[in-house]
């Protein structure tokens, strides 16, 4: 009985951690859909956003105001990226854009540290990384309150974004651009506005993801690398699929926790870090477009 409960605990912790991966992956998917580019700067955006947020708080700005200010800042970053990086590179190959996002990552990391300094910050969201007493008492499960909050926030954000894509005009425009930017332009969909929207949304998602990660692990440079965990999530879920990002994140979260606990000891532990990437390699062999990736539609 204890064994089963413990397994549930591990899976639940995995699912909750997974929602955070989903959230970061969602940022990638947004940009990938609109510009067919893997945005290497997504991790840097997470770091930049949350560091700025903590920085604003340190200046004595209250929580809500600092949040709004950072959202505006991320929109400004999106605007500058469209103007200074994407616009001059319009019609260049996807590889060129990919390289440009690597450059953007360095700029954002450097800028954030130049302005706010390099020391690790604590971020207190008012919810601790402790088991929720009620669940512990009644169900015998130890579930972190922070995990639960992060899971709920991530899930809400994901649902809102998914509904936006499906049912709003902007969402339709974005999906059209994702399918064929040239054809979208030909019927008067302004690509520039769509890009702006996407980068702003990705910036917002980065901020939320950064706050969740930062509250757990501290606001520090390592957040940039944590975001790379989204890569196996995307390979499993598919680069262009929002449901894929969600399910992929959950799978990675659960698999890495379960493997860590049950298989890890025979490897000397610490397999959490690389197990998702191994899983991703198997997925690449079995289903390269991912579970939910949009298959390339070819009529013969």
């Amino acid at each position, binding site marked *: 009985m204890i064994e089963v409960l413990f397994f549930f605990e591990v899976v639940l912790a995995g699912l909750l951690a997974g929602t955070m991966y989903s959230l970061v992956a969602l940022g990638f998917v947004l940009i990938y859909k609109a510009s067919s580019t893997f945005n290497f700067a997504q991790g840097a955006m997470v770091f930049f956003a949350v560091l700025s947020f903590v920085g604003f708080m340190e200046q004595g700005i209250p929580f809500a105001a600092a949040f709004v200010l950072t959202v505006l800042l991320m929109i400004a970053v999106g605007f500058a990226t469209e103007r200074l990086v994407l616009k001059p590179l319009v019609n260049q190959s996807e590889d060129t854009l990919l390289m440009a996002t690597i450059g953007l990552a360095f700029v954002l990391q450097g800028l954030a540290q130049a302005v706010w300094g390099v020391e690790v910050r604590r971020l207190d969201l008012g919810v601790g990384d402790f088991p929720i007493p009620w669940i512990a008492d009644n169900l015998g499960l130890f579930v972190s309150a922070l995990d639960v909050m992060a899971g709920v926030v991530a899930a809400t954000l994901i649902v809102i974004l998914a509904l936006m894509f499906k049912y709003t005009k902007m969402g*339709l425009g974005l999906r059209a651009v994702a399918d064929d930017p*040239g054809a979208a332009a*030909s019927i008067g969909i302004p690509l520039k506005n769509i890009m702006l929207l996407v980068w702003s949304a990705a910036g917002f998602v980065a901020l939320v993801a950064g706050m969740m990660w930062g509250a757990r692990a501290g606001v520090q440079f390592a957040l940039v690398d944590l975001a790379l965990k989204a890569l196996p999530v995307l390979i499993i879920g598919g680069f262009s699929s929002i449901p894929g990002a969600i399910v992929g994140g959950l799978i990675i979260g659960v698999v890495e926790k379960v493997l860590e606990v049950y298989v890890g000891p025979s490897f000397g532990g610490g397999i959490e870090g690389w197990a998702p990437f191994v899983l991703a390699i198997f997925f690449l062999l079995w289903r390269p477009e991912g579970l939910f990736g949009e298959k390339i539609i070819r009529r013969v």
Partner: protein
Amino acid sequence: MTAPTDDILKLDQVAVVYNNVISALHDISLTVPRGKIVALLGGNGAGKSTTLKSISTMLAGERGRVTRGTITYDGTAVKDQQPSDMVGLGMVHVLEGRRCFGHLTVEENIIAGAYSRKLSKGEMQAELDRIYTYFKRLRERRKSQAGYTSGGEQQMTAVARAMMTKPKMLLLDEPSMGLAPQLVAEIFNIAQELNKKEGVSILLAEQNTNIALRNADYGYIIETGRVMLHGPARDLLNDDKIKEFYLGISKEGRKNFRDVLRKEAESHSELYHG
């Protein structure tokens, strides 16, 4: 800016260069009278698509540039506009190869065409109903994913999507491409209907000379980026040279259109040689 005339579109000695080095158009002058259908004919690489893209400003997206000449659309000089600006001015370009949004449904494709317009839910439905009266087949297929519909349905979707921008001028690039003859006829019938009932002027690029001229009021034949010949569609249709060249029936085998022209340059007083 010049005053609006009865010509909705006028190209004057337009030259286009791609990537600063590849010269695609040398000297294209043509006119589309308001409310008429004009056919732009020529083989592969003649410059038909480039001509259309220079008009709709889709060229910039392909690193092309108008280096000489002027394009005047409905009294406005076409220069540095974006394609979305041109859509705002009432011009829409149906690109070669249909280019539907494959992962969207047929109806979502058509609705996307109204992106630049502010429509209420009721107005949108009315617009859709209006469009479906021309494209009856699409009403049945409206819930299907566009990428899985037939070539003809995709072509119709592309034209229907363009019509949702409420254009005054439609640029159609090879609507017949890869379609069975009955479907080609159906598409051209729809184009005729749109022209008559919606009053939309059409510039049509085609390789299928016969059907294009049957449906057009006037025709231009271009080759290697130059207008070789132009005239009323009926006259071109009855022209022996064109029959010979485009049907490939010639005693000396296939030859360059310019040679055909040179040989018979003196005759045909009713046609103007470019």
